[in-house]
């Protein structure tokens, strides 16, 4: 811990207002999502707690029928928007993080293999990556989503919706990570410490894992952070298009889709609050990722 407090990274962090603000914002949003069930006044996933009479209540105005007051108003079902946003944030973050974890896992593994082994395997993996790059990643995600839904029995579809979402976003984002890892691996494997490891007869698997992997991880950290913002937006887009999180377990994207229906009939809050939350989340993750990239790459300074 002491080492961290004296590191260049921490020094730069404290001196960059953007980094501090975005970090505080991300942490707040994560904490809100994690402790949603303690903070939220109602459980928006529980249909029994909803009262249709509360529908379309404006923020901070008492409902005409029940007299209840809601911080951010309610939607058409009478669902408390503040609670829905907290739980939606949880879904969005969870999907984003898991998708990034999946993309990073695949990307690091394939990138290491391609860079270290080279030859036809490298050609195969990287051409596959090139082909995937020619399609927008949201299209790939929809494709994977569609196939997965088609394979699943109807009864499982809603239950597995989140897993399918993670899978489809994860599989659509691995390319940039694999490319970065591959190029770092190409640099690292020519260094003499790798030759020294080969001299004592270590097998290639151990060299890749114990020697090269730790040395290619810092660019991965940066890309993973930026990919997190992308994944969150991808999830919101999918949910907005109606192929993501189901309305019974709404994510931020689902809430925005619901809100969009009522935007021109005067119920602006149903769209606005989830949209602002998504904006803050994606923006702060992105800013933090940018700062991390600039700091870890001295050439950009």
């Amino acid at each position: 811990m002491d080492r961290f407090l004296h590191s260049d990274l921490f020094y730069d962090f404290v001196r960059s207002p953007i980094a501090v603000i975005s970090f505080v914002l991300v942490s707040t949003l994560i904490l809100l999502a994690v402790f949603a069930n303690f903070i939220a006044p109602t459980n928006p996933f529980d249909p029994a707690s909803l009262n249709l009479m509360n529908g379309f209540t404006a923020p901070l105005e008492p409902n005409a029928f029940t007299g209840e007051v809601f911080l951010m108003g309610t939607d058409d079902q009478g669902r408390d928007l503040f609670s829905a946003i907290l739980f939606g944030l949880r879904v969005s973050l969870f999907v984003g993080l898991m998708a990034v974890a999946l993309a990073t896992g695949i990307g690091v593994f394939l990138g290491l293999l391609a860079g270290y082994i080279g030859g036809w395997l490298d050609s195969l993996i990287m051409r596959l990556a090139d082909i995937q790059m020619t399609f927008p990643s949201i299209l790939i995600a929809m494709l994977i989503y569609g196939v997965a839904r088609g394979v699943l029995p109807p009864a499982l579809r809603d239950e597995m919706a989140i897993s399918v979402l993670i899978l489809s976003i994860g599989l659509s984002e691995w390319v940039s990570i694999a490319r970065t890892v591959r190029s770092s691996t190409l640099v690292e494997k020519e260094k003499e410490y790798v030759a020294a490891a080969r001299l004592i007869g270590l097998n290639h698997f151990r060299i890749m894992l114990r020697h090269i992997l730790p040395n290619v991880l810092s660019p991965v950290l940066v890309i993973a952070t930026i990919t997190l913002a992308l994944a969150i937006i991808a999830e919101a887009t999918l949910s907005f298009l109606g192929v993501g999180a189901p309305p019974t377990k709404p994510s931020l994207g689902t809430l925005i889709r619901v809100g969009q229906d009522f935007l021109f009939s005067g119920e602006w809050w149903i769209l606005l609050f989830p949209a602002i939350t998504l904006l803050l989340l994606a923006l702060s993750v992105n800013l933090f990722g940018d700062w991390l990239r600039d700091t870890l790459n001295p050439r950009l300074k």
Partner: protein
Amino acid sequence: MVEKLLELKHISVTFKTRRGSFKAVDDLSLDLKEGEILGIVGESGAGKSITGAAILGLIPSPGKLSSGTISFKGQRIDLNPKLMRGSKISMIFQDPLVSLNPLRRIGDQLIETIQTHSPCSSAEAFKRAIKSLEEVGIDPSRFDAYPHTFSGGMRQRVVIALALAPGPAVIVADEPTTSLDVSNQDQVLKLLKKLCKEKKTSVILVTHDMGVIFQTTDRVAVLYGGRLVEIGVTREVLKNPTHSYTQSLVQSTPKIEVGSFKKPTDQLDGFQPKIDEQSKALVAEKLTREFDLSPAWFFRKLSFQKQKRVLAVDSVSFSINKGETYGLVGDSGSGKSTIAKMVVGLLKPSSGAITFNGKNLNGSDLSHRESQKIRQRIQMVFQSPYASLNPRWKIGDILLEPIRVFGLSSSIEDEHKRIFELLDQVGLSKSDVQKYPHEFSGGQRQRISIARALASKPDVIICDEPTSALDVSIQAQVLNLLRELQREFSLTYLFITHDLAVVSSMANNIGVLNKGRLIEEQSSEMLFSKPQHEHTKMLLAAAPILDI
């Protein structure tokens, strides 16, 4: 008295960092007379490059000229360095690969430089550009060529032409020949010297190489830790250094000293391991290696290209006796490192054989176990002290790995004892096991690298340019360490270097490589006194040797 062309008065350059400010140059005063070549010599961190940069006002951020004045012909230039930069004072950089714009023809770069500093017609500028190319010995028909079509030495000539084109009074040359082979270095330095004498241009030559200083400069300034230690006429300073630092610098500079190594047989008989003339430790027979330069598999198949091959090592044969040091010398691209990689098994020879203690290393009859046993006994010390240690590993773990892999210790206490023993043998302390490589200096890292090679108790150690990245005083220490270890453990060395002076003090026998072929093989004494091959003679003549 000759007029002072350039005068540095009490200059200090300070770098402000978060860990406090650091004086790279500390109260330095120098002057440069018209037409003289002044050498600035020192080890890394002495502040010599910063001094050169300060004259041009090119101190890298966050450094600042914190005190002192720089004046050119009595006029202060530190306040507005752009006034003189390029036109009156120009610079030659170390790396000719990056100091020329790769996307522009050299002729255009010359014309641009000429026209920037003296307004003249295009025809006039063209004439002058052609003339300056002729002066540096480059065929004017290459006027429209791009930098990548030139060799390193030729590129540095173009850079010299560029620096001289505006007719400057002073040229600051920062390690102009460090990245060149000895033969090119010699030519470039001679050219620089000749042109500057002709044009009465003064030169400040910044270098770490005492040999270059000795052979090129009129006066020399010795820097240490940002301070001027000694200044004076080159021959006198190097012959009779008054300051103890200069003395040690001159002493540790390797000279060609035939037979300066102590043959183990010179020692008391019966005590020291003798050179065992009968048994060969390592024999290479008609070693050949080809490289495939064709594009990647996929594109080659796609475009139906044939494989393009280049011969890096061409049937090289040599043998090393047990307990001996065999030196391999050659320019860059002569195949030295390729041979090293084949000997340790990092590369497979295209043909030929390597025999270790009578066993063929490339034979297919070796089991995994046997080859592992042989690996254990042939280890390597690498060139770069920065890339040869895994930056994420602690020193203890780096040394532990070979011990574990070869199963050399039975218990954890045993392992610890062995690691401490290794650190002790290379002159490091026990507390270093917990440190990471970046906490050590270049010389200390090289010691760690040697300790790692020793960890598996090898018979043969391949040293691939083990000291070329180190300062001379550190180099001398590392070479001494290698000699001591050789005596203590009767090691056999294959010592690979481009530096004739270093190899003369280390090797019993020397092989000279040129373009992949072994052109000469002699005992150390014979090679330096009676070289046979023309190329060897040329190498010996070109080597910048401190010869006092």
